[in-house]
């Protein structure tokens, strides 16, 4: 088997592995994908290094806990490895990978209890004397709980658009939808979010 590192630009392998692997350039990514299609698992390790952070964060936004996010991220990468021979490069690799991860999240039914329950447990007692960091954390939990109550398509749209800095067209491609539908879903997601935050304030 040829070494994957040799098939990639010099310095690529060493720069890609730590952290989020931001050094992986487009050509190097194509080379890594080609190597994966030849069955070279080391090449896939480089792609995982490149995308592990956004994929993990996408999953976390969806399930709101580390363990499930970790499982979902690993599952998404495993599915990507199995299917990489079918990746033809018609869309960006990142779009293809996001689609796999979103589908894994949408299919996720193994949570032990509703996500909102876990999030809301932390909302019960905002200490009046708490410092700013605690208050911010409390507010973040409220927002995440509100997002977790959104209908699934609205939630997926909102997470991809707001937290992954994707265009409406890219979100539409990931979700297998149209740009118009993505914009409409985003509008309703934001409106629902506002309503939920207001009703939460009126309860407290």
């Amino acid at each position, binding site marked *: 088997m040829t070494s994957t590192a040799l098939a990639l630009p010099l310095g690529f392998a060493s720069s890609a592995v730590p952290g989020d692997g931001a050094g992986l350039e487009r050509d190097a990514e194509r080379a890594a994908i080609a190597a994966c299609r030849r069955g070279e698992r080391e090449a896939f390790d480089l792609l995982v290094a490149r995308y592990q952070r956004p994929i993990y964060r996408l999953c976390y936004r969806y399930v709101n806990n580390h363990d499930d996010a970790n499982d979902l991220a690993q599952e998404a990468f495993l599915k990507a490895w199995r299917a990489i021979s079918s990746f033809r490069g018609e869309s960006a690799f990142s779009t293809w990978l996001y689609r796999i991860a979103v589908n894994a999240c949408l299919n996720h039914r193994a949570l032990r209890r509703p996500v909102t329950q876990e999030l809301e447990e932390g909302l019960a007692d905002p200490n009046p004397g708490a410092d700013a960091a605690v208050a911010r954390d409390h507010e973040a939990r409220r927002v995440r709980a509100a997002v977790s109550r959104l209908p699934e398509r609205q939630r997926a749209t909102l997470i991809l658009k707001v937290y992954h800095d994707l265009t409406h067209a890219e979100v539409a491609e990931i979700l297998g939808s149209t740009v118009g539908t993505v*914009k409409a879903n985003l509008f309703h997601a934001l409106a629902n*979010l506002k309503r939920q935050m207001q009703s939460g304030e009126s309860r407290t």
Partner: protein
Amino acid sequence: MTGHLSEESVVEMASGEGDPAAREHAASCPECSGRVHDCRASLALLQQTEIPEPAPLYWESLRSGVRQKIAEDKRRVSAWTLLVPLAAAAALVLVIWNGPTKPAPVVAAPSLPAWSPLPAAEDDEGLRVLEGVALSAEGEADLEAPAGLAPYLAGLSEEESRALAETLRGRGPGGES
């Protein structure tokens, strides 16, 4: 521009897009500018909402977990690719060992009518035969038994013939019925 901004236009404007006509309308329409403002506020709130950052060492464990899953998956696939040809070979050996199996001939079940009417007494050949048998057994018959029946009657002893005749007349052997 006629009417208020569509949902799509509101989202575009809240995201910093939107065409000049939409912007112009929003500038002069308090309702639409309010909708754009609400969307912007929600977007800003969401963007401020962070999630906990995993420890730096976590990323290596994630990659390691993926490597392990891929290795397990490969072993599972390998096991199947080995088992399937083995199972096929075993099946082939069994077929050869037992010889080619011929399908059992299909025997059509006799089709019997659920009910059929008896012929009229004057048309019933069977009654004439029985009557002949009974009378000839007693030596009173002037009817001849049908030719096909003679060999059977000849094989009966005198006592058997008598018993048969009495039975046909409605008397059991050795008594009145």
